[in-house]
């Protein structure tokens, strides 16, 4: 690990070699650290700031949140796939 830049040097090899390679090419990669089957996600905009969601008839329910990015949020607990939730009015 490079202490100054807090980065690692990773060596990689082509599995299948491309037909042509240009000088100065760069590579970009994602490292898979976990994968999960049958996870439940909802759009980020349906989640209220205090980790609650609007259910039908104005009921508010607290949920347990897992991974999240700007688009989607993983729900660990508190909802199942048949629940209907409403988008909060801004």
């Amino acid at each position, binding site marked *: 690990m490079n202490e100054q830049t807090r980065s690692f040097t990773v060596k990689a090899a082509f599995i299948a070699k491309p037909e042509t390679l240009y000088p100065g090419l*760069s590579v*970009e990669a*994602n490292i*898979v650290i976990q994968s999960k089957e049958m996870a439940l996600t909802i759009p980020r905009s349906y989640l209220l700031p205090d980790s609650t969601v609007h259910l039908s008839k104005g009921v508010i329910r607290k949920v347990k949140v897992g991974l999240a*990015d700007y688009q989607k949020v993983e729900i660990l607990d508190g909802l199942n796939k048949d629940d209907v939730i409403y988008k909060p009015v801004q």
Partner: protein
Amino acid sequence: MKSHLIIRIAKSLLLARWRQTLVAAVGVTFSIAMFITLLGFMNGLNKLLDGLIINRIAHVRLFKEIKPNAHQPINSSDRFKHSYNFIRTVKSESSRQAIYNSGAVLRALKKDDRVSGVAPRITAQVFFNDGVVDITGVINGIDVEAESHLFHFNEYVTAGKPIDLKHVSSSIILGKGLAAKLLANIGDVVQVTTAQQERFSLKVVGYFQSGLQEVDKTQSFASLATTQKILARPSDYITDIQVKLNDLSLAPGVAREYAKLFDTETEDIQTANAQFETGSFIRSLISYSVGITLLIVAGFGIYNILNMMIYEKMDSIAILKATGFSGFDVNRIFIAIALSIGFFGGIVGLLFGFLLSSIIDQIPFNTAALPTIKTYPIDYNPVFYLIATTFSLVTTYLAGWAPARKASKIDPVVIIRGK
């Protein structure tokens, strides 16, 4: 009814009262002259200020911005493309700021009919070493000929020859402010350090002065090759492509098109510099309103004089009507009087306006910020002259309208009986 008879009568009436006519015409002349001068001067200034900024900015700029790739590799892998991938600590794609395949992009741009010119650029952040002090600065790697042609680079070089950048290897043109800070004279060698801690010696071949102090204090110019050398990059390394279009208004559309076509970021002049247009617009608005106000004042003068003339010419109007001239004819006579005051006053006004503009154009105007400007700027746009003529005719017509109507309504019986 023949118009030339109407004009003949109008002319005689005008000449019979030539002093009043002159006063009215002088009013129009004055306002038209001021209108022309004011607009010419204001627009001259506008163009100058635009020139200061807009002329030096590309209509469309192609560049590569450092930001995360929207298409992350995992989403294109067969195994994961059907699942939702939460990606943490996304890194921006490499440190590459260069435009891919820049040679081909340049060639394609030069072939586009809408493009009047292309100038590639490299921006390099460096430190200028002045003894123990490091001054941050920017070296712009440029194609001197293209920059001079498109963005008047040569006009801002106040000392030295711009073309030396190309002919003298490892040469640099410093901003005037930067040169003053470094105490660098032409022919001196300055030391620069790149972000990668590489040191270079560059020979100063000139100064430039943009008129914007902030720019002059930090910016410097070198040739593309020199900059590529400093950055240790290959000769196709270009970070910016500046495009000048034949028609500036196409910029936003062209920018969007190029962004898609060349897969780069683009920026167009309208989006980037909307505030300058607003400034120009307001200056024009002010000059137009002052000019029109002057004309309206002149219009009132004409109105007054025509009213007086009608009062004096009651007998003549009565006679004309008694001998077979209709109210409409009388109306036309007075409208013709008003319009000829407007026309001749206006023509002389245009002449005086032109003269006054030329005089202002001769007044020395030297400022450190504007090295290329020696006298006050004047814009001799013929459109102003056209507008002024139209306005003078319209205002005098309107000023003459009410008096002429009054004249046409005069009842000859009342006048003849009243004697």
